[in-house]
């Protein structure tokens, strides 16, 4: 993304692309985009909650909830590790930003690489989780098989759609992080660097934030 700015703001000493509101244009755009994405993920999570409530009600009515609750598929151990990874990556991200602002480029590279590695581990962990769930009988289909019994439920469909789109966002975030890593390496002197880092950081924290929601609403409750 690039942005034009006012001639009268191009004076030396000003941060790049600061406009009439006193903020960076790209940062403002990204925050608005995050606002929009909030509604996107809320719609996906809401869909999941509505259908899970229905499955739960049906299983309760047939007295099979304790045995066949699709939540049994979701192992808390792996997910807790994934949540911890994403949370840690948020910390490394913000440390990378602090380093970039302090122009400590060696530190910056270390923390950004750590973020990239943690992000990639999350994606790999999710891929492992998905293949595991598929093998166990939870598929992208309007029924699941648990211990030999087939249950009509949209749990698999809503779960994979929701977490899949989150995973896609994490993947795009990792690609963006890598791009920023190389950009800063190529142009270490550019005064735009802290803002480039801040932007990818905002996106990255947002992706973490969505996982905070999914972790609580889908895995724990």
């Amino acid at each position, binding site marked *: 993304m690039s942005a034009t700015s006012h001639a009268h703001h191009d004076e030396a000493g000003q941060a790049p692309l600061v406009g009439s509101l006193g903020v960076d244009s790209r940062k403002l755009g990204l925050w608005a985009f995050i*606002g929009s994405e909030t509604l996107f993920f809320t719609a996906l999570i*809401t869909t999941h909650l509505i259908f899970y*409530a229905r499955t739960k009600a049906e299983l309760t009515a047939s007295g099979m909830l304790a045995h066949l609750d699709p939540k049994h598929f979701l192992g*808390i151990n792996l997910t807790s590790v994934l*949540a911890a990874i994403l949370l840690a990556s948020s910390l490394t991200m913000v440390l990378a930003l602090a380093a970039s602002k302090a122009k400590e480029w060696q530190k910056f590279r270390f923390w950004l690489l750590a973020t990239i590695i943690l992000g990639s581990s999350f994606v790999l962990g999710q891929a492992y989780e998905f293949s595991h769930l598929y093998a166990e009988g939870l598929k992208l289909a309007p029924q699941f098989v648990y211990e030999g019994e087939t249950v009509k439920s949209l749990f698999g469909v809503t779960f994979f759609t929701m977490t899949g789109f989150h995973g896609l966002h994490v993947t795009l975030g990792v690609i963006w992080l890598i791009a920023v890593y190389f950009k800063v390496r190529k142009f270490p002197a550019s005064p735009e660097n802290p803002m480039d880092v801040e932007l990818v950081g905002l996106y990255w924290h947002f992706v973490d934030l969505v996982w905070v929601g999914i972790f609580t609403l889908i895995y724990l409750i």
Partner: protein
Amino acid sequence: MAEHATHDQHAEAHEAHGTRFYWMVGAILAIITTIEVAIFLVKDTIGHELFLAILFILSIAKGAGVVMFFMHLRGDARIFQLVFIVPLTFAVTMCLGFLTIFSNYGGIAG
């Protein structure tokens, strides 16, 4: 121009957080996550309502921590708060509205 002053203010806000501060926030968030997992493991003993209440409070605290300190929404320009909190309000309204409507036919309450 009064509007331009906000920029300098939020620039200062950034400086205020040192790396120590981020480590502290990170540690608190890690502790919250640990507590969440812990109460999940003992949820049968503390009752469903209490479990839900604690979990919601902890998750909101965790999310708020990420947004306020890692994303620097606290102390940053007002406009960022506006373009994030307004849609967040819409999102929560939509979620609650949908869950209420769908409780009529086998939703959360049914």
